[in-house]
């Protein structure tokens, strides 16, 4: 019989040991802790949901299985079991398994003792996602395994992973080696274009036509202080339609406290901030535009302090079409099957779809 099925009586415990946690590595699942915004929870979950979901598919997992979000690379872990794994996301991290290069966007097989090592990602891209067959089996808290660091819940004891953490893995049947076709992989950039839908506070009652044109034509810099809570941009005085925020405050960006959408572009004084998955669920600032759901993933790959971004306005119909395109790319049937291969999953040539 084969030697590789996890869960055999003689197999190692299905675990992953963290050797180097990097800047911030967290346990996440998709779509995270939903339905709790009224209690102050944004969903958490991966900032780049596309790369995360792709990694899960490639590892043979269900969409809800938890994986690791590795910020900026600089990460190492040791497998204590046989498993299938996949790494998707930022480029230039030169990942290796047992010293052999590991390709992104395709399944690789691991054996007990194998060490996965990523260098600091040179980019483009900022976050890597590691999925392991069976998923990371930490307890669900309020319906999700994702970490919410502010609330101190989810993941490993409500915090990012630390050196020496041993993460329990779920059990899984052996899955085939797969690859996401080149044509369906997202393109990473150093200058990003973000598709936005105007509003909720983007109409001429809040921003003048000139203000809106500026917002959608200017090249914005991604601030160094950007994180899972939000991507901050450089300060710029937009042309507001109102002299002030009325009863809500002296600045025209002020409104009476309102719940924010994930991906909302809030303008806090003169600083636009795109709200990420751990962001504040409400506040007293206008949200002049909202990222199309299908391009939320880009927030996870923009490099703080380095990349630039421009906003492109699209209609709701276009946003719906983009979402359909994303779902198309993430269907299991789109994956290419690789020939059985060595532990690093050296790819046999496969025709693009």
């Amino acid at each position, binding site marked *: 019989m084969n030697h590789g099925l996890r869960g055999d009586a003689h197999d190692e415990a299905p675990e992953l040991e963290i050797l180097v946690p990097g800047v911030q590595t967290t346990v996440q699942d998709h779509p995270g802790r939903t339905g709790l915004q009224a209690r102050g929870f944004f969903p958490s979950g991966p900032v780049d949901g596309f790369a995360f979901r792709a990694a899960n598919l490639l590892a043979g997992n269900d969409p809800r299985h938890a994986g690791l979000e590795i910020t900026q690379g600089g990460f190492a872990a040791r497998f204590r079991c046989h498993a299938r794994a996949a790494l998707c996301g930022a480029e230039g991290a030169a990942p290796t398994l047992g010293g052999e290069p590991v390709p992104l966007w395709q399944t690789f097989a691991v054996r007990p003792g194998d060490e996965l090592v990523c260098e600091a990602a040179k980019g483009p891209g900022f976050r890597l996602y590691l999925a392991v067959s069976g998923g990371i089996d930490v307890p669900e808290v309020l319906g999700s395994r994702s970490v919410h660091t502010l609330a101190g819940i989810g993941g490993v004891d409500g915090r990012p992973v630390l050196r020496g953490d041993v993460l329990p893995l779920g059990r899984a049947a052996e899955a085939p080696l797969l690859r996401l076709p080149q044509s369906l992989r997202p393109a990473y950039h150093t200058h990003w274009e973000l598709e936005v839908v105007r509003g909720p506070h983007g109409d001429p009652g809040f921003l003048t036509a000139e203000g809106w044109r500026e917002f959608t034509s200017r090249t914005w810099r991604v601030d160094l202080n950007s994180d899972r809570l939000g991507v901050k941009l450089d300060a710029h005085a937009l042309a507001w339609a109102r002299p002030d925020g009325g009863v809500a405050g002296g600045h025209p960006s002020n409104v009476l406290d309102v719940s924010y959408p994930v991906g*909302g572009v809030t303008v806090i004084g003169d600083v636009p901030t795109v709200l990420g998955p751990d962001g504040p669920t409400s506040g007293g600032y206008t949200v002049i535009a909202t990222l199309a759901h299908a391009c939320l993933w880009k927030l996870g790959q923009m490099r703080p302090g380095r990349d630039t971004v421009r906003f492109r306005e699209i209609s709701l119909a276009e946003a719906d079409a983009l979402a359909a395109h994303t779902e198309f790319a993430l269907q299991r049937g789109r994956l290419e099957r690789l020939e059985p291969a060595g532990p690093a999953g050296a790819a046999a040539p496969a025709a693009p779809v």
Partner: protein
Amino acid sequence: MTGAGVPVPEHAVLAAAPAAGGRPSVTYRQAGDRCVLVEYGPPELDLRLNFHVLRMLSALGADPPPGLLDAAPGLRSVLLCFDPSRTARTALVDHLHTLHERQPDLSGVTLPSRRVTLPLAFDDTATREAVVRYARTIRPDASNTRGGNNIDYIAAQNGLPGRDALYEAILATEWWTAFTGFAPGLPFLFPLRGPTALSVPKYNPTRAWTPEGAVGIGGPCVAIYPAESPGSYQLFGRTLPVSDVFARNRVFGDDPFLLRAGDRVRFTLCGEEELLELRRQVLEDQYVYRIEDAPLALAAHVRGAVPGGTGHPDGSGRAWAGGEVP
């Protein structure tokens, strides 16, 4: 992906209707392709609009439209998130508007509500530490941190003769939980009854650390910090935990958050030593939180007894202090 040339409307408003039949006006705004923001009435600080928000949430709970994933209140608004594979945006807005038009005049309405009594220690060591730390590490010259506390600043901003007058005003007010949010379990409280018409600018820039249980005020709104976190409200004291996902006290057994929208809060005076003892008892599940069911009949609250318009409800005509410390 569709080609270019799809017309993009110049505004974000999906639909709107004027005030009618004792109901406020309503505006449905697009908030991306997965959410709709519903705003009620004019942009004024008027708790009647919040009452309408809460009864709409209750109506949504009883008759949820298909595909509704989340409904999160603001002061005068509700954000609705939906699954586009299960509902069309227009169907969602139609459903909401039908519910809106079905609501009778507020004066005949009773909202579910609870009275929650919390002990409060003014000017305690932990909140003073937060103020001092801010002055030392973030902004040494801010007028709101003079003397190592925010209390004198709050009193001066509101033209009060001293601390005692501020404490009395806070204790004599019944506070209305208009919504929870920003961070997990954080309640936003507004004066429902009593003399308080306090308001004060927020920190500028933001404070990096606030102790759990701290109580502060920003604009006219009082907040209780459910966890250690950054913050921008002016702190005046500390109370009991209002959140615990580990449910160390039975009050958190069914819900990790003490307060929900529609709850009324009363603060009672407590010394710091006593507060620390009570906080210990909370963690050991010896303390029983004081909570009573007390539905709120709105008839007494919708005829000028609550802040309406843009001025102070004390009728002085002066504006609420919004914004930040200059």
